[in-house]
């Protein structure tokens, strides 16, 4: 797994690549929670490069969403494709999170 972050306006885009499973999820969680601890209130996670995401990965997203919600921030998910999108659908995450087709679309929502 590989993570790249960049600033886009007031939002921070986190691009995740590779597999997010029980092994790699802790690293993913660390980088996300660090950003939140820094005071970032708008995180956009670009899932375009993710090959596979397990329940451990979903837990990180859920925890991030909860933490941001408590601070009146927001978590945006973009570019979920193929098996990742399936996982989001099956687990019901797709129904509680807004999934955007592209990072740009997500950032537009964020304003």
């Amino acid at each position, binding site marked *: 797994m590989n993570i790249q972050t960049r600033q886009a306006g007031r939002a921070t885009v986190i691009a995740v690549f590779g597999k997010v499973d029980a092994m790699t999820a802790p690293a993913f969680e660390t980088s996300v929670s660090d950003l939140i601890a820094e005071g970032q209130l708008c995180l956009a996670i670009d899932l375009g490069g993710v090959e596979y995401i397990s329940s451990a990965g*979903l837990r990180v997203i859920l925890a991030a969403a909860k933490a941001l919600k408590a601070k009146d921030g927001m978590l945006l998910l973009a570019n979920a494709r193929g098996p990742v999108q399936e996982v989001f659908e099956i687990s*019901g995450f797709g*129904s*509680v999170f807004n999934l955007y087709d592209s990072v740009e679309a997500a950032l537009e929502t964020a304003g």
Partner: protein
Amino acid sequence: MPKTNDRPDCGGIKWRHRLSVRLGVVFSVFSVLIFGMTLGYNYYQARNMITAKMEIQARNLVSATAGRVETVVASVTALTESMALSLELFPFNNTHLLDFIKISVLSHPDVFGSAVAFEPSVNGRFQGPYAPYYYRTRSGTEFINLADNFDYMCRDWFQIPKELGKTEWSEPYYDEGGGNILMATCSVPFYEVQNNQKRFSGIVTADISLKRLTDIVSSIKVLKTGYGFLLSRNGTFLAHPRQDIIMNESLFSLAEARGSRELRDIGRRMAAGESGFIPFQTFAGVQSWMYYAPLQHVGWTLGVVFPEDELFSDIRTLTMTMAAMGFGGVLLLMIVVVFIAKSVTNPIRALAAASDKIAGGDFEARLPESRSKDEVGLLTRDFQVMRDSLKDHIQLLTETTAARERMESELQIAHDIQMSILPKTFPPFPTRDEFDLFALIIPAREVGGDFYDFFQLNDNLLCFVIGDVSGKGVPAALFMAVTKTLIKSFAKEDVTPEEILSHVNEELAAENDACMFVTLFCGFLNTSNGEIHYANAGHNPPLVVNKNGTVKWLPRAKSLVAGAMPGIRYEGEHLKLLPGDSLFLYTDGVTEAMNHDDDLFSEKRLEKDLAFSAGLEIKDTLHNVMGSIQQFSDGAPQTDDITMMMIRYSG
């Protein structure tokens, strides 16, 4: 250990590799080399100095001896010449003549005999050849007329001065007619002047016994066996320690006998009146040095010979003594070096031996005492510190390992407990013919979060549930146990599955700081008609397999997993199983099982395996699917729990 010549106490190091020995050997070799070179140079220089000094000494000795010889020769020459002059100047008769000769012999101790040999052809005073000769005897003098014994006029001592008209010394010879001794003769011609004409009148001779001269030469003693010698003009030996060669051998005859060109050259230089200092081999074959110089009046050569051995014996002795002292010193030094080196290497060897033991795991091995403040002492103390910290580290490691093993065994127990709370008795309801149920769980190595459960709510209502907690380990196991307990406590015949999930969700979501969640599929089977009422909280959709092998996926739930957030409403769904139909439930450990290439087992393979297994007992179906998964993963490690549950409605 193989048998070798090495001493056993060397700590495995061959003795010639030991530092002390190497240091000692290198030191000694260089010391000996330097000392040997110095000694050699010293010997060489001393030799040159001694040779030079010896040359001066030899020259002095020769010139002194030559002086003594020459004094004798010169006085005899002077006597003879004055006799000749007297005969020329003063008139004499025979009586006067005889007295004159006799007195001349007696007055001069070096003269053995003297003669006046007259030329007969011009002589008017005496008839025929006349040569009165007086020679010395023990009692006084004897007289003979040489003309009575031999024809003196043919003799060299008469002929040569007559022809040359000047004083001449003869080659030494044995006087057989006169004294029968080895002698040399000084011959001086004398003349008669008449009418201003100088006429040869005869020869005055004075014989000198060579014994006196050879005694002078023989008295020369150089070193122990060095000697002097005297050679005549033609190289004949006149004086030499070897009596047998005197008058019998000459330098040239010896050169001939030895085939020595060198000796002949020496002879030539002597004959030419040169002097020199040269290395030389004596008749006895002893390597020697020789100094020679000419005697002016007689043209003889005086020489001294001294053996090289004796010449250099002092410096040889000195050099040998120095060498012995030097080598003794080097030996002593080597012992000291080895001793010092040993005092350095012994602690190192002891340290090496101790480190060997430590390397073998014996941390109690005694390290050598480190009282010294040198590098070895420092090393020893450092080593001690290293040993101690290593010991502590190993102890810590041992404790940690023990703790980990304890934890692992506790995890194993946790795992066993977790597995034990799942129903394991199959068939679970042996008295019921209208349905059958079988479940299989293959946990991953770690404690996982998969579970299943089933229980009867009443005679016709079977509650079944399958779930997968996010994550692994003890938290997941606890979360799973809580979930299972909650479901069982909420499940009543007058409650719907969606209500159960909602309740469970509320309970789990409250105070869920870890944000853990669980996917749940909960269903009620009406065993009398095959109707199923179910609700799905984010779980993989099950499949319906009919007896002909048709496989159909249930629609995806699209409702959120349980525990993620509160306030979720779950939808109830309905399904009717026909007799022979089965419901297959599973967790994602099935479809996401991986092989070595990280390929997933996939829904497609599951579907195919289920279709293939149609008509088999549900137990065999699940084992078939499991076998297929194992075949697919081909030994790749299982990362997630694999759980399957199958319910067949028989009608």
